[in-house]
């Protein structure tokens, strides 16, 4: 059986959970078994995860699951995996998933691959799965030799597919240990999709000349329904908050659309964004290295091009 840990935030499932369940169902199909889902703590309507291909939902409740401690969650997920005889455990490659995958692999003594982006294949009993490596410069195929396998799924690697029906929810009796990490506060930006989960991203760099000029970026992002991002020099200069910094030392993202405005495209920046499905580059310098990584390029003054693009998008949105 394939067991997917479905993350929830304040009881709500996020798109990443639907991606993970869809991936789990496809993985289960590949190895000829069923996909089940594990839900930790209270959650709204877990049975709905059945529509993404889960046959059964197992829910563990208990004090200590409201806040995230990788040790508590790791112990519970591992115990559930053993109790349910899971062959493959699937997580999201998210803040929680990254903290959990190593723990689970060590606890279950399982082979693990972090950040997979394709459904595994099984041929003659050999289990293989792919991920991007070397900042997207190569794709590696991993072979996992252990009976139990742990995978974390890259965000936006697979589109959620809702085609099934609601699944039964069963309480699973697993002890929840007490944790040693106390969460004091959580500070997140409300109202926008966090960058790692965003499908559309509008990002700007030093070409903006100063933080006072960001209005045109925010307007473009607003019309598009995109999340804003920035390059490292912009974050380092304090023009934009640290959590907007994408690139090698910031956040690595893979949205469907990445619009880079006034960013030259240093290799360290590309390392964090070149897995994006489509890249638009707007830059006045036709020699900017970013154009080599772009699908669409606009050579022009961003202070003229960006408002024009915003207007064109407004007209498009009015008709679609």
């Amino acid at each position, binding site marked *: 059986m394939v067991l997917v840990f479905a993350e929830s935030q304040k009881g709500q499932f996020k798109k990443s959970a639907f991606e993970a369940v869809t991936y789990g169902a496809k993985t289960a199909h590949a190895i000829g078994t069923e996909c089940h889902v594990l839900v930790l703590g209270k959650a709204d309507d877990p049975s709905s995860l059945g529509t993404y291909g889960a046959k059964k939902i197992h829910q563990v409740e208990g004090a200590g699951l409201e806040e995230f401690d990788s040790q508590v969650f790791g112990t519970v997920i591992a115990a559930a995996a053993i109790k349910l005889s899971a062959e493959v455990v699937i997580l999201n490659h998210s803040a929680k998933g990254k903290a959990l995958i190593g723990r689970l692999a060590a606890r279950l003594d399982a082979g693990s691959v*972090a950040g997979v982006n394709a459904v595994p294949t099984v041929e003659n009993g050999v289990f*293989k799965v792919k991920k991007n490596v070397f900042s997207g410069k190569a794709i590696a195929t*991993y072979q996992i*030799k252990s009976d139990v396998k742990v995978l974390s799924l890259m965000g936006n690697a697979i589109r959620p597919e809702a085609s099934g029906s609601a699944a039964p929810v069963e309480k699973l009796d697993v002890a929840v240990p007490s944790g*040693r990490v106390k969460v004091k506060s959580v500070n997140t930006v409300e109202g926008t999709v966090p960058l790692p989960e965003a499908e559309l991203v509008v990002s700007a760099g030093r070409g903006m000349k100063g933080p006072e000029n960001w209005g045109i970026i925010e307007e473009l992002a607003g019309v598009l329904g995109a999340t804003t991002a920035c390059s490292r020099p912009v974050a380092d200069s304090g023009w934009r908050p640290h959590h907007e910094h994408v690139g090698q030392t910031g956040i690595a993202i893979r949205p469907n659309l990445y619009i880079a405005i006034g960013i030259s495209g240093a290799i360290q920046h590309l390392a964090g964004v070149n897995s994006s499905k489509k890249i638009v580059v707007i830059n006045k310098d036709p020699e900017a290295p970013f154009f080599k990584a*772009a699908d669409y390029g606009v050579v022009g003054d961003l202070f003229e091009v960006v408002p024009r*693009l915003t207007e064109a998008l407004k007209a498009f949105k009015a008709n679609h």
Partner: protein
Amino acid sequence: MKSLVCVSKTPDTTSKISFTNDQSALDTGNIQFIMNPYDEWYALVRALELQEAQGGSVTLINVGPAANDAIIRKGLAIGAEKAIRIEADPQSALFVAKQIAGHAKAENYDIIFLGKETIDYNGSEVGGMIAELLDLPFISYASHLEMNGNTATIHRDIEGGTEVVEVETPFVVSAAKGLAEQRIPNMRGIMMAKSKPLQVIQQAEAGDLAVAVHFEAPPPKKAVTLVDPENMEELVRLLHEEAKVI
């Protein structure tokens, strides 16, 4: 604080990546290896800052072949007082974690530091594995860490923000940007590093359960389509009809 800092080697970001003829392994011939930036810039430097403020010690550990000594010496030049290299040619994260946990078990470190991930495979697995093998708390993606006695206050990066947590030593923490500022080793540090102890120990028995068996280049990217800067309606059309992303 008695700290252990796990350091890994990784190809420099600007390296051209190619593979052996049978595409089963990285061709290391033309690659410049560096210390993984998250290990060097943030994990190691924060460990050194804690030592400077409150005393204690900073030990480096690496799992790898003798060729890694150059990277380890750089860490000593930045300020760690001693280093351990576990002689091995590691193929998987769990193998590395078992080696490090095997050493750390008897040493009672207060904090085990490492970078949030390596910039080549981006797995971020080893920290959680070490924590699990040693039954320790693990705080990942730390961008701020303050100690008050044995209690650490840590900001960890999460989707769209940060979470502030408290944890008592001992624990494992992985470092993100913001935890410290990069330090460049000076000449005195480089000279002193040559005589600092670098102990080589033999690997413990541990198998590889997940290994990369094949590498390929991503599908070639189509040349950029240039759009007239006066005609953004055309760009919108392409994004909708051709790219199908809006």
